[in-house]
């Protein structure tokens, strides 16, 4: 369906962004292999990135619903 395809695209783009940000943070000087300490950094970075996404998502959604209930309240007063 269109809906699940859009959701998939969203997840893929989120993972691409996490890959880009975590590569920048954890592999500043790319060597001849990914060391186990690089991988440990990447795993923690991915967890933090997903947590950051959750925090941003929660804050954004709460703000939008707060604003729109204010708008409805203002409309009711007219």
């Amino acid at each position, binding site marked *: 369906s269109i809906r699940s395809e859009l959701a998939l695209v969203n997840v893929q783009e989120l993972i691409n962004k996490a890959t880009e940000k975590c590569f920048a943070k954890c592999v500043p000087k790319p060597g001849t292999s990914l060391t186990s300490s690089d991988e440990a950094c990447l795993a923690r970075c991915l967890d933090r990135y997903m947590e950051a996404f959750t*925090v*941003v998502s929660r804050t954004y959604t709460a703000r939008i619903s707060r604003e729109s209930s204010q708008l409805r309240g203002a409309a009711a007063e007219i």
Partner: protein
Amino acid sequence: MDQLQFDDATKKELASFLEREQAHARVNDSIRNLTGMCWDKCITSTPGSRFARGEESCLSNCVERFLDTSIYIVTQVQRQQQQLLQAQGDS
């Protein structure tokens, strides 16, 4: 690739479905972009097994202040446009 024929009620329903999905996609884009931007602003240390002190509150403040900024700037633009229109009306 056959031609589909819809009656008017179906067309309307389809249009409003697509509109809702597009709005949904725009919200998802905003959240993804804000995550990237606030990550760069707030997460400056090497990633640990949890957020460093102040990083999580920085993230939510970043979202709230960005939305404040966005509203403030749109309001400013509208105010300036109104002043422009008024000045044109006066002259």
